[in-house]
């Protein structure tokens, strides 16, 4: 099976004043194509630090990292930018959409930084991505004209538009209510079923149950890495009492 991500003995140490903070203390694992992995752990356990390295936003202090077969641990800033642009799709907790910019233009954004893509194809791919997240009738809405869940869908569409080898999400449901969280998880499950590899950081166990594998971090170490039988988010959604807000 195709290894999308492989890390070996990954360490990340932060220098805070004279003190050293070891956020990641040598972790190794790999993610295969088509997996839906949740990365769990308490606050400060190193989830975001790990995800930033996986997403090529940060470089490990030591250890090896391969994404889609290419070594990413010793790249320059610009090379990492290009890697992010071609191979990675990010979904953030706070959506990070450009204000006063339509959904369509927000989704087009990553492709503007890839000069190999002509404007016609850019438009088509953005439309397709918005269709995948079910927002084909909200193309020209501004972020402030969309609900939180819809904004997160736009952000997911933006992450999908460059056809990344992996989707990385950091607390992507952290700002949403239960119903909307389930909807988003259901969307992730659908994308995963279509073949997308997904790594999903969360500290909520009832969100992690929708993924097929859980990596548990504690204090910079992996304490558990086990496959789980994912629950269908659509079913949980249907099971929610109607008209009741959580």
């Amino acid at each position: 099976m195709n290894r999308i991500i492989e890390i070996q003995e990954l360490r990340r140490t932060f220098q805070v004043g004279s003190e050293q903070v070891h956020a990641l203390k040598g972790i190794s694992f790999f993610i295969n194509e088509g997996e839906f992995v949740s990365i769990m752990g308490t606050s400060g356990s190193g989830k975001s630090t790990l995800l930033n390295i996986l997403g090529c936003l940060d470089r490990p202090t030591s250890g090896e990292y391969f994404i889609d077969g290419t070594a990413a641990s010793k790249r320059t800033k610009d090379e990492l930018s290009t890697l992010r642009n071609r191979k990675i799709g990010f979904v953030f907790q706070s959506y990070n959409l450009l204000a006063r910019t339509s959904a369509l233009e927000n989704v087009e954004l990553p492709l503007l930084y890839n000069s190999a893509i002509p404007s016609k194809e850019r438009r088509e791919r953005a439309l397709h991505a918005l269709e995948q997240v079910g927002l084909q009738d909200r193309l020209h809405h501004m972020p402030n004209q969309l609900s939180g869940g819809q904004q997160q869908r736009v952000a997911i569409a933006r992450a999908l538009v460059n056809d990344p080898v992996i989707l990385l999400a950091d607390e992507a449901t952290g700002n949403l209510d239960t119903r909307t969280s389930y909807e988003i998880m259901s969307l992730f499950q659908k994308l995963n079923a279509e073949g997308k590899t997904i790594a999903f950081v969360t500290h909520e166990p009832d969100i992690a149950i929708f993924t097929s594998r859980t990596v548990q971090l504690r204090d910079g170490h992996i304490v558990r890495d086990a496959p789980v039988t994912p629950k269908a988010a659509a079913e949980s959604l249907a099971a929610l009492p109607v008209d009741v807000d959580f």
Partner: protein
Amino acid sequence: MNLFNLLRIAYRALIRNKTRALLTMLGIIIGIASVIAMVSLGQSSSKSINDQISSTGTNLIMVMRQNQRQGGVNIGSANVQSLKEEDVTAIMRKAKYISMASPVISASGQLVSGSNNWPGTIQGGNTSLLVIRKYEVASGTMFTEPDVRAAAKVCLVGQTVADNLFSNGENPVGQTIRFGRIPFKIIGVLASKGQNQMGQDQDDIVVAPYTTVQKRILAITYIHMIMASAMSEDVAPQALNEVEGIMREQHKLKAGQDNDFQVRSQQEMLKMMNSVTGFLTVLLAAIASISLVVGGIGIMNIMYVTVTERTKEIGLRMSIGAHNKDILLQFLCESIILSLVGGVIGIIFGLILSYAASAALGWPYMVSTTAVGLSFVVCAATGIFFGWYPAKKAAALDPINALRYE
């Protein structure tokens, strides 16, 4: 990243904040508009002065009395008696580049006709004075050689004098006016010439034979000034030198001795006026460019504040693949677009402003293509210069920190 995408990104970023973009541009708009207006108006004014001096005749050459010093005291030129009728005769006889010359003697006093009176100046000359000074006779005739010889009490009046002395519209020609105690018969009225470049009314004039002014009014033996015409404009400089030589000879000045007279040509006047208006134009443009610099700093200020305000946006752009260079160019592009668009609006305003002003002042409308071209270059330079620092700051941000920024 290709240029088209870069422009699209910068344009979209600006359009998201139209009001701010417009306010930022305001400084540049005002700066460029005032530079354009100042330079255009400067050119208009010097053009209008040129036109007027040319209309007085650029082949006019004047010989004037030199201010004299007695024991270090400047006693002015009023009592200097160095110019004589013979000087005029000598110039006419010897000069190759001079077509006409006339002595000029002026006397000021009250002109009276019946119950009307008008303070005026009688200018005495010979029969060629009108041609030298480019006056024309509107009605009546010019005085003649015999009039000059006889010191006849005849005169021609300018339009202003005629209007003031004959306020109920009778024909001045044939009437008699008094200058002091002396009665003058009006034999002609001069065609109107309007104001000269100094704003003086050229129609406020009375012309009479110089002999009459010299002998009957002032009772002097010398003359005040010599006015002469060069053969053509082209030979005016040679004519000037020639006249100076003849005058030195006439006054028996040895080599190394200073002139006891001054020779001036209208061309010199023109040059002098041009250097004055040129200096004024530069001065005004310099003052106006200060506002341009202030405008540029305004752009830098806003762009700088924007970088902080847009930290999250920058972080996001980096996280989806923007290189440092892309961020740098985006911010640079934004400030260049701001200053160029501001510049174009400024140029339009400047042109409208200078058009309105020169129309109001009655000056010819001049568009300085150099100023317009230069403004454009200055705008682009302003955009780059003042956009560079904020752009550099934006590009130096770390994506993780930028994304976390609240």
